[in-house]
Structure formats: structure tokens, C-alpha cells
């Protein structure tokens, strides 16, 4: 939100011409019955609060905390995320792939930018870059290294190529030192990149056990 620094914090900011125009158009659309203000509010609410990597983080935290849920998630990702109230066009064929001490997973869409949008929000720009799409398949370790992720040599790296039909979600390994943490606290460790596979969750130094 841009504020005129000269205006006092409590004074309403002068609306710009384009802002006035937006208001006028909305009023017109409402009067024509083309939009309802509360429907617009619902959309805004959605992208401000509901969509984003925290949906995916909730899924991962639940899988860490609840082994039965983890099994369901790995068996049918779409069903398992729906259990948590997450749905969306692109979540229709969601496949969750779990990292293990022997296997590290990473997702890509080599053709375009297919992405598990309902669980991860909007893809980062690098995900759509030709460099990432081409290189992560050919030399995944080098690409992960550029993200600061060095994997032991005996860990197999599996690259999952997303498509319009199948979207993947990486379920990272639960970090050590998180015994007894509740799901909310666990979820805070799960970043978007952890669920793309270009990072792994880390417990912040000095976190209380």
C-alpha cells in the first residue's frame, strides 16, 4: 500500500484517478447485477488468506504428526488434501511423493508451469524459467546445489515431471528435534521450496524442544 509520506497516518489518502475509476466500475457492475460486492470480497479473501504454501504446509505437518494420514496422503493425494478442506481445479490429480533417507524428490514441469496450485499457491518465477525446467532433469544435483541443498552422494534424486493431469507435492522428512511439536508449529517449518523439493525443512537454531 503506497502512502503519501506527507499525509498524516490518520488522514485518508487521496484516491488516485485509477482507483476512483475502479470504484466507479465496481459500482456500475453491481448496479447491472454483474458482480456482488460480497462475491468480490470472497475472491479477495481467497488469494489473501487461503491460497498459498501454507495449505501444503498443513498437509505435510498432518502427515508428520499422523502416520495414518501420511498413508492416505501417499495413496491418494487428492482425497487426503480434500480431507483438510483443500480443493481446486489443479488439485484434482495430486500425487504426494515422500522423501526418505534414500530418496529425495523434486518437482518440475518441463513443458510449461503445471504446479499444485491449491496446495502451494502461485509458482515462483524460477519454477517457470527455461533454465530450471531444462536443467533440473538433466543435472538435478547441480541445480539443487545452486539452491543451497547438498545431498549425500548415496541419496537418489527423483525428478517428477508435472502435467495438466498429474501434479506432484513433495512430502519432506520431518526434521530431528521436533518431537512433541504440534501441527501448527511443524507447519511453520514447511516452506514452499521444501514441497517443490529444492529445500529441506530446518529447525531454526535455538528453537526450544
Amino acid at each position, binding site marked *: *500500500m*503506497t502512502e503519501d509520506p506527507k499525509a498524516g497516518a490518520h488522514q485518508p489518502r487521496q484516491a*488516485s484517478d*485509477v*482507483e476512483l*475509476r*475502479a*470504484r466507479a*466500475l*465496481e459500482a*456500475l*457492475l453491481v448496479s*447491472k*447485477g*454483474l*458482480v*456482488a460486492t460480497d*462475491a*468480490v*470480497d*470472497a*475472491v*479477495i479473501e*481467497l*488469494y*489473501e488468506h*487461503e*491460497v*498459498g*504454501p501454507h495449505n501444503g504446509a498443513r498437509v505435510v505437518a498432518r502427515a508428520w504428526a499422523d502416520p495414518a494420514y501420511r498413508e492416505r496422503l501417499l495413496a491418494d493425494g487428492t482425497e487426503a488434501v480434500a480431507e483438510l478442506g483443500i*480443493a*481446486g*481445479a*489443479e488439485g484434482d490429480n495430486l500425487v504426494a511423493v515422500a522423501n526418505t533417507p534414500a530418496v529425495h524428490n523434486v518437482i518440475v514441469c518441463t513443458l*510449461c*508451469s503445471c504446479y499444485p*496450485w*491449491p496446495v502451494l*499457491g*502461485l509458482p*515462483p*518465477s524460477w519454477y*517457470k524459467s527455461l533454465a530450471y525446467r531444462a536443467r533440473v532433469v538433466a543435472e538435478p544435483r547441480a541445480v539443487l546445489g545452486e539452491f543451497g541443498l547438498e545431498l549425500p552422494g548415496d541419496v537418489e534424486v527423483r525428478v517428477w515431471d508435472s502435467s495438466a493431469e498429474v501434479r506432484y507435492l513433495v512430502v519432506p522428512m520431518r526434521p530431528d528435534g521436533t518431537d512433541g511439536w504440534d501441527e501448527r508449529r511443524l507447519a511453520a517449518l514447511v516452506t*514452499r521450496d521444501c514441497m517443490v523439493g529444492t529445500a529441506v525443512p530446518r529447525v531454526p537454531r535455538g528453537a526450544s524442544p
Partner: protein
Amino acid sequence: MSADAALAEAQAALAGHAPLPRDESNLVFEEPWQGRALGMGVVALERAGASWAEFRVHLVAAIRRRPQRPGESAATAYYAAWLDALEALLAERGLLPPEA
């Protein structure tokens, strides 16, 4: 269609042509009216039965007609064109008077 599905469709249809302004991970709204403009688009297109591909044609044309102005942010310019495009699409379908 649910709002989240509609928004996902918008992302997909506009990507590469007139992508929504965003930073690394989130949509960028510098001012609330920009978010409302996007919300209006999602709701009005569904109401009008118009596709995002159809909207995209109007949006690309509107951006061409109204490029970013000096002293104006990219997001402001984008959503100003967005309003033009929404109006043009609805006028073309006879849902708004022309030049409303």
C-alpha cells in the same frame, strides 16, 4: 466454478501473455483497489460466461493501448488496463453500454 478454480484458470490463461503482477511467491497488490479489480474480473467473467482466453485478448489490447506511464508502478498500469479490458469485454457482450 469455485473462486479458487477460477483464479487458477486466470493464472494459467494469462501466463506468458499478460501475467498477473507478482513477486517470487505471491500476487502483488500495492493498493486494495488492485485486488478488487482482480476480484471483479473473476466474478464478472463467470457471471458473463466469458472465458479467460477471451478476457486475455482484451487485456493484451488494453495494455498495448495504455502502457505504463511515468511515475506509475507496473501493478498500477496493469490493473488500470485490466479495468479497461473488463469494461470492453462486457460492452462487447452487450452487458454494459459502450464507453460506460
